């Protein structure tokens, strides 16, 4: 939308924002001055002074002329003073609403009565040269029947807002409007940047993440284009390497098959046993490598499946092999994902717990925000410094341990790739009481209800 208005760069957007904020503050101030006087400076009518003035006018008119000055002086109080004048007063500033005159005439039932009204705009003496009203806040002069005048002066307006109050009100208008507009404008500016950061994060976790949308101001669209181009290049690079390694691993199977078959004809049973063991070991490596590569290269269809049964399958398989592993989770937890791939991931995690941790307890829980899969073991755990390292390909905590204790260091790498492709991550934690805790929180996908 903003592109239509020529606001296609961060700089012009910023300038426009500042302009908009200042304009908004200024208009608010104007509106306040124009309309807020109604409540910031209540008019005389609202405090009943008109009625009092009308009554006093009638009372003073009723007494003989000689008594009028003293009577007028006597009826004043702390709110207003009253004075009598024999001549028409000279008033310098006649800023008073015609409305006030109208009200007074109605109250006196005399539409032709001469009335002068003064209303100061500020709670300050407006015109020091005005001898009649001087520094009064409001003033009114009413002519009497004999041509003399009665002058009412209201000393101050305790009911209105003081100058500093009004000033701070205006200031806060400016601040609030500026802050509001800047915030909204900055949000629209920052959102593409946040999207950018998020896309970079996603790409870090999952190289197959979709390209980011090229939206926002020109500078950011350029950055997004560059990022997407880089992402494509990296992906192609990774794919080439992966394909090559997969091809090598794949092609190793044929010579391995030959070796395995030749082994059948070895006479020495001990040599034959060792050769078979070597073949098995190499096969395990090829399998692990291929599994890792295929997870990246092939797309298993996502489907809804019984995750509890999938985890139980892995657990029971290991238990059948004599491992100390049990499942204490919920049944019939349905999840939407790629079952074979996930089976390999959970399999790797549970196998690790069995191999390195002695005994494993596998849990599966559901809550409002997802499914929590966890594996606890009774082993020595992993030094905190290595908790991240263990995910690197071919990394093994205890290098001295060889094939007897398991794989070649691709299990966790592969598992993390799979779990991340499902929008989650693997968290490793050393338990306070000893042993390792593996946590995977799977986000609930919409269709995942039983």
């Amino acid at each position: 939308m903003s592109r239509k208005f020529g606001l296609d760069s961060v700089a012009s957007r910023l300038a426009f924002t500042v302009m908009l904020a200042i304009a908004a503050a200024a208009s608010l101030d104007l509106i306040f001055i124009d309309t807020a006087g109604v409540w910031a400076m209540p008019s005389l009518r609202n405090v009943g002074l008109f009625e009092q003035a009308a009554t006093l006018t009638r009372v003073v008119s009723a007494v003989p002329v000689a008594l009028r000055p003293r009577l007028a002086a006597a009826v004043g109080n702390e709110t207003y003073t009253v004075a009598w004048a024999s001549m028409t007063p000279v008033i310098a500033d006649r800023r008073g609403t015609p409305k006030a005159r109208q009200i007074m005439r109605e109250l006196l039932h005399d539409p032709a009565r001469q009335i002068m009204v003064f209303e100061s705009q500020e709670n300050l003496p407006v015109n020091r040269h005005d001898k009649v009203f001087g520094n009064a806040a409001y003033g009114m002069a009413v002519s009497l029947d004999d041509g003399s005048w009665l002058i009412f002066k209201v000393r101050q307006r305790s009911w209105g807002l003081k100058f500093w109050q009004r000033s701070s009100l205006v200031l806060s208008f400016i601040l609030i409007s500026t802050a509001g507009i800047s915030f909204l404008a900055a949000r629209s500016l920052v959102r593409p940047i946040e999207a950018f950061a998020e896309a970079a994060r996603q790409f870090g976790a999952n190289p197959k993440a979709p390209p980011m949308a090229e939206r926002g101001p020109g500078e950011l669209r350029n950055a997004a284009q560059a990022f997407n181009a880089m992402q494509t290049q990296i992906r192609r690079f990774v794919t080439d390497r992966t394909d090559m390694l997969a091809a090598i691993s794949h092609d190793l199977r044929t010579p391995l098959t030959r070796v395995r078959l030749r082994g059948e004809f070895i006479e020495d049973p001990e040599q034959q046993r060792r050769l078979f063991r070597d073949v098995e070991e190499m096969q395990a490596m090829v399998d692990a490598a291929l599994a890792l590569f295929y997870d990246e290269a092939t797309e298993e269809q996502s489907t809804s499946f019984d995750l509890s049964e999938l985890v139980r399958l892995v657990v029971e398989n290991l238990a059948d092999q004599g491992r100390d592993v049990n499942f204490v989770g919920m049944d019939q937890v349905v999840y939407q994902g790629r079952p074979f791939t996930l089976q390999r991931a959970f399999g790797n995690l549970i196998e690790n717990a069995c191999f390195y941790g002695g005994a494993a307890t596998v849990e599966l829980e559901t809550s409002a925000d997802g499914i929590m899969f966890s594996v606890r073991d009774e082993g020595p755990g992993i030094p905190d410094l290595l908790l991240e390292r263990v995910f690197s390909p071919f990394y093994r905590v205890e290098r001295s341990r060889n094939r007897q204790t398991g794989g070649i260091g691709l299990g966790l790498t592969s598992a993390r790739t799979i779990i991340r492709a499902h929008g989650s991550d693997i968290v490793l934690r050393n338990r306070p009481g000893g042993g390792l805790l593996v946590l995977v929180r799977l986000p609930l996908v919409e269709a995942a209800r039983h």
Partner: protein
Amino acid sequence: MPHLLIVDDDEDILSLLTRFFQSYGHTVSIAADGAEMFRNLEAVSPDLIILDLMLPGEDGLTLCKRLRVKSSIPVIMLTAATTPMDRVIGLELGADDYIIKPFDPRELLARVKAVLRRVEPDLGDAANTPIRPILLFDTWRLDVSRRELRSSRNVLVPLSGREFDLLLVFAERPQQVMSRESLLDLAHGTTHDVYDRSIDTQVSRLRRKLEPDAMTPMIIRTVRSGGYIFTPSVRRE
């Protein structure tokens, strides 16, 4: 003794497998590619084909598909692929079993025997019926070629290979009392590590997955005289 036709482009593997199977008394013919396979098929009429997936020219999958048009001869695929997808494709195109390279030749021998035993009874009408149907029973749907069990709501329930084999044996023989021995034999062949209880374990796992209440099983019932019966009727799709 059955006659095997082995199709592989690797000469060493051909000669080694030939030697191995001959040492177990089988007659073996070989072929290096599809054309040779079809020639030998008519010349020697083998009982089973062991077919490599990766072949020059037409690959194993294509050959398997072409083979199925005219013959129901059992096929075991040799595959270097590990993904379940490749396996599924092979089975969908009509292979009876598969084995992943590198393999223990004794395992291949066992599968040859198992496949031959499986196809023997219904040899007569095998050419007419779909080789790998979808079986429907109770609220369940068993896709034989994809080796998938799904609920009425299309939720996949994972099965181990042995559980699937056992369930398939049941579903292909509904309302028949099956002894543990025959179940073991039909599901896993003669090579199984013979201990009787393993069938009971697998049945109880299947019950947990299939039965609404595993305590009072309705689908796979225990027969007092020793064995199990699969009670629901099975429809083929």
